[in-house]
């Protein structure tokens, strides 16, 4: 495409098989007062 460059093709709304709960949690990170979810990790290595 000439006018639009794809940086990331997201699949956030494809949720089948998701929701296992093996996510990183805030207390593992360096964040104690302004916790962000989007910069944490999915830790399910089987997906």
């Amino acid at each position, binding site marked *: 495409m000439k006018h*639009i460059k794809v940086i990331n093709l997201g699949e956030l709304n494809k949720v089948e098989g998701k929701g296992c709960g093996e996510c990183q949690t805030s207390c*593992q990170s360096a964040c104690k007062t302004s916790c962000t979810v989007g910069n944490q990790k999915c830790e399910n290595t089987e997906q």
Partner: protein
Amino acid sequence: MIHKYELNGYYILLDINSGSVFEIDKATYELLDYYPDKTKACENLKGKYDLADLDEAWIEIENLKNQGILFSEDIALEEDLMRDHDIKAMCLHVSHDCNMRCGYCFASEGSFEGEKVLMDIETGKEAIDFLIKNSGKRKHLEIDFFGGEPLMNFEVVKSLVEYARERELETEKVFRFTMTTNGLLLNEDIIEYLDENMANVVLSIDGRKETNDNMRKTINNEGTYKYIIDKIKRMSEKRGSKDHYIRGTFTKNNLDFSKDVLDLANQGFPSISVEPVVATPDNDYALTGEDILDLEKEYENLAVEYLNYNKQGDKFNFFHFNIDLHGGPCAYKRVSGCGAGTDYVAVTPTGEIYPCHQFVGKEDFILGDLEKGILNQNLRKDFEKVNLTDKKACRDCWAKYYCGGGCFANAYNFNNDISVPYDIGCKLEKKRIECAIMIQVAKQNR
């Protein structure tokens, strides 16, 4: 839903429901103001852009929409996966006492409005047992040794790590430990122990000496910088590439906090997190609405400098600019938020259970205790229910799936309601996300 913005010369378009990210040209950026009214768009933009170009850009927008990656459909989650979460993580308050007197401390010199007390080994073991018992099928369990200053109770920390390792064998759980410390008690033995046994080490210092010493004091009201900087450097050197963060707080006294971040980077610290203070406006160091524009600009300046440092090979990692566009947490996690009160709890030295460390000391938020378990199921349900779909302010917010709905404690502290997000926090969060995504776009252009 889409969001578009211009930052550091890049025009960026986000499709919120899919998480797709696009870099667009200025014509497309302006066309989107009129979408889906093409006639009106061309009428208003024909003097500024070639009509053929506008037509091409319009077709590209339509194609992406038809592929379902622009203006994509909202996320449909299964209700039962949003309920009855098992506990995964615990903030273990091994010390409600502190050897510093920081001006902005939300923990009242470590005591959280209560008595200065250290956790005993038996209570700590009960906390670990509680976590295992309430973790269901979750394999990876997290414990953050927290305070007050947790190294004031170092022998108990060691005993609890040993106990958890024993219980791993019989339960097939895997524990990961984090230590959050002010660094004052670090010595070679402790540094070696933490390096060997902690998955992450979080070291508190605010940045430049004058910034740090303005808020982080000894019990004799001296600045702490000279006592901690070498110890924190030694811990960081020992840690090498293993997870550790230098963590600071900025206040109204250092709205130019990017200088503090860069000062830490210049000293060679590889991973840095500097966060806004959480304080009500009656404190002279509190951030207020009039600071927002300056702070947003400061994040933008930091993002540009961050890219410059990376370009020159002086790489460092700023926690709040981390974003994994290709992976990251799934929609369930993003909708349920930080997990306080559901996936995550805090346990005090005397065994009370709270939704998270920020609520400790607020008696209305006691979920239960280690002896009797979770007693206040209604409170737990409140935390479970208040997710993105329940927060009015979040429903139409473009940042919702990046942010997760913000901090419950901030919402309560400022609005007396865990479902009403803290407005200043929202504005700063949005700017951090815009900066983080711009950095990813810029990196792909190199």
